[in-house]
Structures are given as structure tokens and as C-alpha cells.
């Protein structure tokens, strides 16, 4: 039926835009594409996507926790990997998931952020590491975009 594929594609794209990330296929690991109108939003969406991969179960009743991080890197691409690695470290050692991230400072090679979240009961998946593989933050049609490979 003409138009169906187009509608389906538009629906998929809308969902991608709404969530800000999409989990992609990879033969051995997990790849994710993240989007954002600003670099900060791209970083936040990438962190949200990473947390979805972990399939965590939030403890009830929820209890709010706050963590602060500071990351310094060689450039913007490395900053994204180092930021996600630091968030992953906090998630795994504190058994928490963060639903709000606020940047206090953000440059192309340094950031400071506050993370707000909840304790979790368990994770359904483990992420071993956030890799630099093929990572290039690019601006396309007014949006920042990056594809990140996680070692699972």
C-alpha cells in the first residue's frame, strides 16, 4: 500500500526523536545512536539509552539520591565516553539509576554534572565498558548525533 512504509518510517523516526536514542544491531555487542538539539542533550540522551540497556528494576518505594561528577578528557568524543563510563561506574557501584542529569559546567573537554536517581533492586544486563569504537559526534540537520558501542 503506497504511503504505508513512509508512515511507518516517520513513526519510527518520531519515536527515535522523542526518546533521543535508539538501540541498534551489532553481532557481538550493543550499539546505540543518540541525538540531541545541543551537545548537553546528546550526552543526556546517551546516558538514558545506556540505562535502558541495563534493564534495571527500581526499588519501591523510590528513594532519591544525588551524585556529583567531574570529567576531563582530550576532546568532545572522548568526553562522551568518559562521561558515560563515570555514570556507569556510579550506577554499578551504588546500584542506582539516574532519571535527571543537570550540567553545572560543560565545555568540549570538561564537564561537571549532578545526577539524581533511585536505588535499584537488580540489573538485567551488564555493560563491561563504553568503547571509543567509531565514535564521532556530528551535527546533522541541526541535531548532534553519535553512535556508541558498548562492550556487553
Amino acid at each position, binding site marked *: 500500500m503506497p504511503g504505508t512504509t513512509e508512515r511507518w518510517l516517520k513513526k519510527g523516526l518520531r519515536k527515535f526523536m522523542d526518546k533521543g536514542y535508539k*538501540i541498534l*544491531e*551489532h*553481532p*557481538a*555487542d*550493543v550499539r546505540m545512536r543518540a541525538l540531541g538539539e545541543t551537545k548537553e542533550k546528546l550526552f543526556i540522551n546517551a546516558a538514558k539509552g545506556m540505562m535502558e540497556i541495563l*534493564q534495571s*528494576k527500581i526499588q519501591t518505594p523510590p528513594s532519591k539520591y544525588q551524585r556529583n561528577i567531574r570529567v576531563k*578528557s*582530550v576532546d568532545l*568524543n*572522548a568526553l562522551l565516553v*568518559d562521561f558515560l*563510563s563515570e555514570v556507569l*561506574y556510579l550506577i*554499578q*557501584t551504588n*546500584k542506582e539509576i539516574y532519571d535527571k542529569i543537570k550540567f553545572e559546567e560543560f565545555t568540549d573537554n570538561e564537564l561537571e554534572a549532578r545526577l539524581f536517581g533511585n536505588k*535499584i*533492586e*537488580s*540489573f*538485567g*544486563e*551488564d555493560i*563491561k*565498558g*563504553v*568503547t*571509543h*569504537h*567509531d*565514535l564521532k559526534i556530528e551535527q546533522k540537520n541541526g541535531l548532534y548525533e553519535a553512535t556508541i*558501542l558498548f*562492550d*556487553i
Partner: protein
Amino acid sequence: MQKDDFKKINDYIWEIRKRGKMNVPARIYVSEKMLNEVLKDRSVEQLINTATLPGIVSYSMAMPDIHEGYGFPIGGVAAMDVEKGIISPGGVGYDINCGMKLLRSELSEKDILPYLEKLATEMQKEVPSGLGRGRQIKLSIDALNEILKGGAEKLVEQGYGEEEDIKNCESNGCIEQADASVVSEHAKNRGRDQAGTLGSGNHFLEIQKVDEIFNENTAQKFGLFKNQVLVMIHTGSRGLGHQIATDYIQLMMRAMSKYNVSLPDRELACVPFKSSEGQRYFKAMSAGANYAWANRQMIAHYIRKAWKEVLGEKIKLSAVYDVAHNIAKIEKYEVNGKEAEVVVHRKGATRAFVGQPVLIPGSMGTASYVLVGTEKGKESWYSTCHGAGRTMSRNAAARSLSGQEIINNLKAKGILVKCYSMRGIAEEAPQAYKNIDEVVDVVHQAGLSQKVARLVPLAVIKGE
């Protein structure tokens, strides 16, 4: 990349000649049929990138279970000259000393079948995934430092095993250059509550039986007989090792410009082995490897406990061997007629010294193998394959069959599955992997190691 780009050396070796920035040629141990599969992903490109690394000796090599990774391909083997060469965390992988441990009982399949369900349940209870459920032991930093320095031996001293376990373990379960002071607080914090845990993904415990013996003499030497019941453990250094890799990739990325190293892929991040950063990584990686040997040792201890609960105090599980498949080691070889030390990076490749038991796990529900290292293995720095190698993404695998369908299929074959997560099972579907029999046939035919026994699962216990 096409088949025409390769020179066929023999039925099981295919070579890409040195070109561009390659310092050495690249070689893949693979059958012609499997080569067509290999060409479907970017693993060959990654193998060529590995050949450009400074100080690489002879060839950049890949085993038949090669598949696309990041930086080095999975299944990659590369030896670097210790004086002129580099060391790269990307040549080891995030799961430092991911590897296999095999325990043997004196029982046959018929003795164990009435107790199988109970044994699997008890093992699942005793060996948590470490992702939330189960036993929570939090080691003090001092106790953790001792494990990082002393490896599996430290645990045996503390009563978590027997002297025989250490003898039957690569490097006796400890790399002596390990230094806990170059392992970050972050890494230590990730490791404190994960000793004795399995993790997720393709990590597993299996109760297996010896299905076929190919080499009676060697099988006897390894203590193996037909229908014998064994336990196989597949896991690594957990969050501690993952964090060491993350920390040192970050550090090397900053340090590389100092050493004029330019790379086609950032995940190949490396520094000269003899540089201060290179030495620090080697010491930290060795500490991570020691933690992994200790982790598998502690798991073996709790499996023994589970077996005693079910079958009584007299039941004995002896170690056949324990071997890493993600590691960098300093080894001595004859290079250009002279004895030389090289740093052998094995990323998804198993050490196979002459006469050593080599443990190759299959995918969930399929066969695993015990091989033995051979003299001919010298050509691949005494390395062989490490498993089946994935061909399908986790999502594609989960879409193709449900977890329940897989459990039913395995049950029909008489295999019991214990896993908290149905998706975890679906992601590890056997059809998502290469055929293990074909992979092992290549290393056997190429002479890198010889088949000793084929093992099939009776029960599979997975993390998540």
C-alpha cells in the same frame, strides 16, 4: 574486502600481504567456507589495523572464531617485541582474563541424572550473577589488594580450594608482576562485592558429560573418561577488570601523542610496553587477571559446596585446568633465530602450550571441547580459538526464538536450563553462534592444538 584479497597458504591459513601502513602481513586460520562468513563483518579490517601497530612480530593473526570487536577483532592474536613494541588494552578487551575452568567428578552420567535438577538449583543459589541477587560479600580494600597481588593462590591459602587447583591453572593462577597500587579506587570499588559472581551475557556454569574421546592417552592424562560428569565455568574479572580497561584506555589516549603513535581506531590505544604508562597498564592488567583467577576459584569453591549439599561430603570435584582467553602475557620465543621476549595479546584466543589442556566452550546448549596444545602451535604463539564466535546480534537472536522456545528445545535434548532472565536465554540462542564443531576442526586440522574430548551439556546455569 574480498576473497581475492587473500592468498591461500593452505586449506586452513589465508593471508593478506603487507601493504599500506601494515608492519607485518595478516593471517586468518579458517576454512574456505568459513572465510565467506568472516568477510561479512569488519573483523578483517580490524585485523589489518592490528598489523599496523608498532613492534608487532611475524603476523597479526586471527583464529577461526574471529568476529568484529573494537580495536582488535575478537579471536585476534598479536605478539609485540618488548623492546620496540607496544601494549594495548584493546588487545586484551574489557573483560581481562575472561576464561574457562573445568572441574571433573569421578561420576558417570547415570549416577548423576536423578540429582541433576537439585544440583543445578543448588549451584544457581550458590553462585550469584552479581547483578543484584544472591550472596553479597563485600571485601575490605586490604583483602582485595591481597587477591590482586596473589590471585587464586591467595584464596587457596584462605581455604577456598586445594593446592591441585593452583597446579592445574595457567600461570598457577597468578601473574607475579601484578601491582594493586596501580589499580584505581574506582576499579577496586567495582570489584569489592563481585568475587565469586558469574556476570551476565555469555558467561555460564554447565554440568557436562564427556560425549566422545578423540585421544585416549591424553584424555587419561587429563583424568577424563567417556560419560564422565564435569563442571565448566566461564567468567572473568567482572567490573574490576572492566574498570581497569576503561581507566587505561583513557590514560593511553592522553599519553599517545607523547610517543607519536597514530592509529586508525581509537580502541587500539596503546603506548610502548617499556614506557611508564605501558608498565603501569601491564601491572594493573596482571592484577585484574589475578582477580579473575580468584573469581573462578571462589566459584569452584561454592560449586563444590553445592555438590556436597546434594551428594554428600565424599563427593570430589578436581580441577582439570583453568585458562584465560583475554590477556596479554610476556613469553619467550625464538624470533629471527634469537631468543626474544614478546608481549602476546590474546583477545578471544586461548593459550595452548605443548601438553596443556585447552578449554573451548560452545554456545549455550551445544558441545564444548578439551584440546591439547602442540609443538606446531608455536606458529600462532601457542594460541588457539576460544569459542564459537557470534554471528547474530543479541536483538536478532531474541527476535528469532523466545527464551521459552529455547528452553523447550534444550529440554527435548535432555538439557536443563536455569536462568532468571528469559531474554538472557533468548540472546544466547545457539543459532546466534558459529558451529563450534567447525571452529574446533580448523584448529585441529591446522595443528594449533589437537582434539582430546567433546563435552555436551546436561544442565546450563546462566547469570541473567
